[in-house]
Structure formats: C-alpha cells, structure tokens
C-alpha cells in the first residue's frame, strides 16, 4: 500500500490560516489501512485544528467526509454538491488525492494534510516499511525476493557497499542493510553463484527518470 505520515500541525494551520470553513476529506484506501487518513484520523485532525484555532481566537468551522478512494474520479465526484460550502478542502489522502480533487474542482483551494513517503507494508501494528520504489521493471527475483532498488540506500545492484556493518546500513542503525540479507540468504540456500556475476547497469527509463508514467490496459481502456 501507499504509506504516508501526517504533516506537522503548524504547517497545516499555516495553509488554512485565512479559511473560516473547511472540509477535511479522508480516503478509505491505503491511508486508512496505515492509520493516517481514514475517518478516524480525519476526526482527530478536525478536533486538533478546531482547538488550535479557538486558542488563537479565530475559530474555524470544519466538516468531515471520508470517501471510498481519492484516486478514482467516480468517488471524488461524490462530494461535488458540498465542495462549494467551503473556503478550502484539506485532503487526507496520499499525494494523488489533492491532485484528483484539484483536477475535478479547479476553482477550489485544495491542501495536502499528509506527506506521502513510500510503497510498503506493515511490519507490525503501527509500523510500516518501504518495499517498492516503483522502478517499472521488477528485479526482486534476482535477489531472493528482496529489492535493492528500494531497500539499499544507494540502490546498488552489485552490493553490499563497504559501509555495511552488523547487518545495518551506513546511513542509520535503524535501517537494515538489505544486501546483508540478500547475501546471507543466498549463502544459506546454496545460491551464492547467483551473486558471482556483474549485474549490468539498470535501464531507468521505465522508472520516474523516464518521465511521468501512464499504464494502459488496451482490453478495457475507454
């Protein structure tokens, strides 16, 4: 899923400083699953913002609405009858949400309440970790199911670098060295030969480096 974190409250307060009435829109997709932009978090953010504005002496009116997904126009459309009641809309979805909202409601000011961080999964309750960099050409099978593009700080295809220490990355002891894991698994499974090759430079044209990407399913595209 897409993982995100909430923006600092003061940053959000600054965005909406001139607004008297706003709508916070949540998303029932990924950000609900990673507990950052679902109905519950929308409610909490609304309370926080109301308290903050009351304290400042400029109370704000806030309504809440959580829609199925903000990355599908058919759901974004469901708020069309109410958007005009507000000075601004605060999207609690990943970076896609505020953009789809802006495209559908071009006259409205749309603000992001979240910082989108990565594509990943839940390690345990409350902890999410990056797994995919969306490079457009999956190579995890070469590395026993582990992606060095997303999980090595240097995206090395021929790792590990000289900074790998005790299974941790040179960047931080909080980051696992994925190359340490790859090498150990290869050795354990008797597949070390897989690594005794020079893996060629990656073609990044399928990644973001090739420009914004569009996926089309010819069989169903309208």
């Amino acid at each position, binding site marked *: 899923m897409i993982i995100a974190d909430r923006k*600092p*409250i003061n940053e959000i307060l600054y965005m909406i400083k001139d607004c008297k009435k706003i709508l916070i829109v949540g998303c029932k997709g990924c950000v609900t699953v990673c507990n950052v932009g679902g109905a519950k978090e929308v409610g909490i953010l609304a309370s*926080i913002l109301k*308290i903050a504005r*009351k*304290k400042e*002496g400029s109370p704000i009116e806030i309504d809440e609405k959580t829609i199925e997904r903000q990355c599908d126009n058919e759901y974004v459309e469901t708020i069309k009858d109410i958007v005009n009641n507000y000075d601004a809309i605060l999207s609690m979805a990943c970076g896609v949400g505020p953009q789809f909202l802006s495209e559908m409601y071009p006259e409205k000011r749309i603000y992001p309440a979240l910082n989108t961080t990565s594509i990943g999964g839940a390690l345990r309750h409350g902890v999410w970790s990056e797994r995919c960099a969306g490079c457009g050409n999956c190579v995890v099978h070469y590395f026993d199911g582990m992606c060095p593009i997303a999980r090595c700080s240097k995206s090395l295809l021929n790792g590990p670098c000289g900074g790998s220490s005790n299974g941790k990355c040179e960047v931080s002891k909080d980051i696992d060295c994925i190359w340490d894991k790859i090498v150990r698994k290869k050795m354990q499974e008797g597949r070390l030969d897989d690594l005794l090759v020079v893996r060629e430079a990656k073609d990044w044209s399928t990644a973001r480096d090739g420009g914004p990407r569009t996926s089309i399913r010819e069989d169903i595209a309208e």
Partner: protein
Amino acid sequence: MKAKKKVLHVKNILKELGIEPERVEMFNVAASDGPSFVDFAREMDKKIRELGPSPLNEKYRKKAA
C-alpha cells in the same frame, strides 16, 4: 498500555498547540479503591487550579490580551 500510549499522544498534540500537556493525566486505580480515586481527583484539581484557566477559555484570553 494502549491507553497510556494514547494519553501520551494527546499530550504531544497539546504541546504542539501550545497548551500545557499536564492538563491531561492518566492514573491507575482499582475499581474497589475509592480513597485513591479521591486522592487522584484532588491532585488533579490542585494541578488544574495552579495552571489556571484553559487557554481555550474566551474570557481568560481576553483578559490576558
């Protein structure tokens, strides 16, 4: 445990907003332990009085200004 984490979270939010985090507190009291409950309530009452009116209180705010 879960409640403790949530209370801490609320305290952090209050701090971020510039409101004294001590305004929220959690105490562990057994259901049968009436006297402790009273003690905690008194302690909290005292603390709140020391802190003074809530910054969200309009009258207080006007006076402060």
